[in-house]
C-alpha cells in the first residue's frame, strides 16, 4: 500500500510472508518477534534503503546474502550502553556476587551481548570484586558483525563521560579511565577484560542450551519477542541454570507471565534478578 506522500507501507501479511521466506533461506526466525517494534524497524529499513515495494525487498534479501546481513543488523537492536541502569549493577554486586564468591569456578552467560558494552561492565565489576580470575563469560549474540565489535571493545570517547557517571552510580571503586586507553577519539578497553570471555554466535529463537551457568544475564532482549517466543527462551534459560543459578533480565521484563515462573524466586523485584529454586 502507498500512503498519500508516496511512502510504502508494509501490510502485516507481507511482513509475515517475508519472514517465512527469510527463515527458509537463512534459518533466522523473526516470526516470533514483537510485531509492533519489528514492523517499525522493517518499515524504517525500507525508507532508508529506498526500496520500492515489499516484493523488491523480499527478492533482494533472498538473492543477496550481503544485503541480508545488512538487513539483519538494521532490524535487530544493538543499542546499549555501559552500566545501563547503574542500580542493576549495584544490586548484582550486593545480591549475587556474595554467593558466586563461594564457588571455585563461575560460569556466566551474557545472552544477547550486542556490541559488548554490558559485557565489559560485567567484567569490570567482577574484576573489582576479585571474581574475574575464576570466571568464564560466554558472550553470545545473533549477529556476527556486532560480536566482532564486542571483541574489539572500542567505543567512542565522547560516550565515556556518561559511562563514567553510570559506573560511579553502580558503585565502581576505581577511576573509570583506568580501564581503557584513549586513542584517536576512541576508548580502547584493556584486553585483559576479555581474557576470560568466549564469544560466539547464538540465536535465542532457534538454538539450544549449550552449557550450565551460575548466572545468565539477558537484559532487554526478551522485549523483542512475543510471549510465545519468550516462553521458549525462558525454558532455554531454565535448562541452562542449576538450582540456585541466577537470571537477570531488563528492568521492565518479567517472569510473571511465564508458565515457568514457579521455578524462580525474585531476588530483586525492581532490578529483575531471579534465582532458580526448583
Amino acid at each position: 500500500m502507498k500512503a498519500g506522500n508516496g511512502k510504502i507501507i508494509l501490510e502485516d501479511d507481507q511482513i509475515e510472508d517475508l519472514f517465512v521466506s527469510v527463515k527458509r533461506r537463512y534459518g533466522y526466525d523473526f516470526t516470533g518477534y514483537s510485531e509492533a517494534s519489528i514492523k517499525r524497524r522493517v518499515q524504517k529499513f525500507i525508507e532508508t534503503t529506498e526500496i520500492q515495494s515489499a516484493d523488491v525487498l523480499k527478492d533482494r534479501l533472498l538473492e543477496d546474502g550481503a544485503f541480508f546481513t545488512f538487513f539483519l543488523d538494521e532490524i535487530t537492536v544493538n543499542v546499549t550502553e555501559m552500566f545501563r541502569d547503574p542500580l542493576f549493577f549495584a544490586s548484582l554486586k550486593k545480591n549475587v556476587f556474595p554467593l558466586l564468591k563461594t564457588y571455585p569456578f563461575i560460569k556466566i552467560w551474557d545472552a544477547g551481548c550486542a556490541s559488548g558494552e554490558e559485557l565489559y561492565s560485567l567484567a569490570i565489576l567482577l574484576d573489582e570484586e576479585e571474581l574475574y580470575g575464576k570466571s568464564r563469560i560466554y558472550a553470545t549474540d545473533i549477529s556476527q558483525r556486532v560480536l566482532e565489535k564486542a571483541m574489539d571493545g572500542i567505543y567512542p570517547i565522547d560516550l565515556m563521560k556518561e559511562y563514567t557517571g553510570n559506573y560511579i552510580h553502580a558503585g565502581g571503586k576505581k577511576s573509570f579511565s583506568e580501564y581503557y586507553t584513549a586513542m584517536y577519539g576512541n576508548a580502547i578497553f584493556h584486553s585483559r577484560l576479555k581474557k576470560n570471555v568466549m564469544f560466539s554466535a547464538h540465536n535465542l529463537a532457534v538454538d539450544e542450551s549449550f552449557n550450565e551457568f551460575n548466572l545468565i544475564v539477558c537484559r532487554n532482549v526478551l522485549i523483542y519477542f512475543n510471549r510465545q517466543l519468550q516462553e521458549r527462551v525462558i525454558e532455554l534459560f531454565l535448562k541452562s541454570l542449576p538450582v540456585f543459578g541466577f537470571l537477570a533480565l531488563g528492568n521492565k521484563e518479567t517472569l510473571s507471565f511465564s508458565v515457568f515462573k514457579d521455578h524462580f524466586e525474585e531476588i530483586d523485584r525492581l532490578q529483575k534478578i531471579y534465582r532458580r529454586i526448583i
Partner: protein
Amino acid sequence: MLEKIEAIVIGGSWGGIDAMIKILSALPSDFKPTLVIVLHRPKNVVNSLEGILKRNCKIPLSEPQDKEEIRSNHVYLAPSNYHLLIEKERIFSLDVSPPVNYFRPSIDVLFESAAQAYGKLMAGILLTGANKDGGDGMKTIAENGGFTIVQDPSTAASGIMPSAALRLIKPDFLGNIHSIIELISSGKEFIWQ
C-alpha cells in the same frame, strides 16, 4: 458525532508535566478508557515521575512491564529510557532502539503503534513541547481514523510541538488545556467502550 473510544494516548515534553497533572487530576476514578502517556524525561535518574503522577490521579497508574495486558480504567506511563509500543492483541511491548527525535520514549513511536492497534477506537492528545516529536504520530492516528486533539500552541508553555503537528494535520479538536479536560472528562463526542 459520537465516536467509540477504547484508549487515549497523550504526549508532551518534560514541560508538559503540569498540563498532564491537570488532566489526570480532573478525571474521575471510574474513568473507563485506557490512558497511555509519554512525557519526554531524563534517563538514569531516580524515578519520581510515576510517584508524582500517582499522587495527582484518582485512576490506578503504573509503568507497564513488557508484554503486560492493557486494562481499561488504568493509566500507563511510558518508562524512562524505553520506547513504549502497543500490540494489536492489546498488550505492551518495550523497545530500546535508538531515540527518535532525540527522545526515548518517543511520542511518535507510541502514537504510531497505537494508531495501528486501535484504529478509530482511540483519541490522541498532543500537549506543550519544545520539539517536533508527536507530529508524525498524530498524522498516523488521523490516517487510521482516530480522534485527534491538539493543545492550542498559543496557550501552551512551549508551542513548538503542537505547532509542528498542526502543520501536518487539521485536528478534530484544538483548544486550551481546560477545554481539552472538559471534552474528555465529559465524554462529549465519545462513547467509552
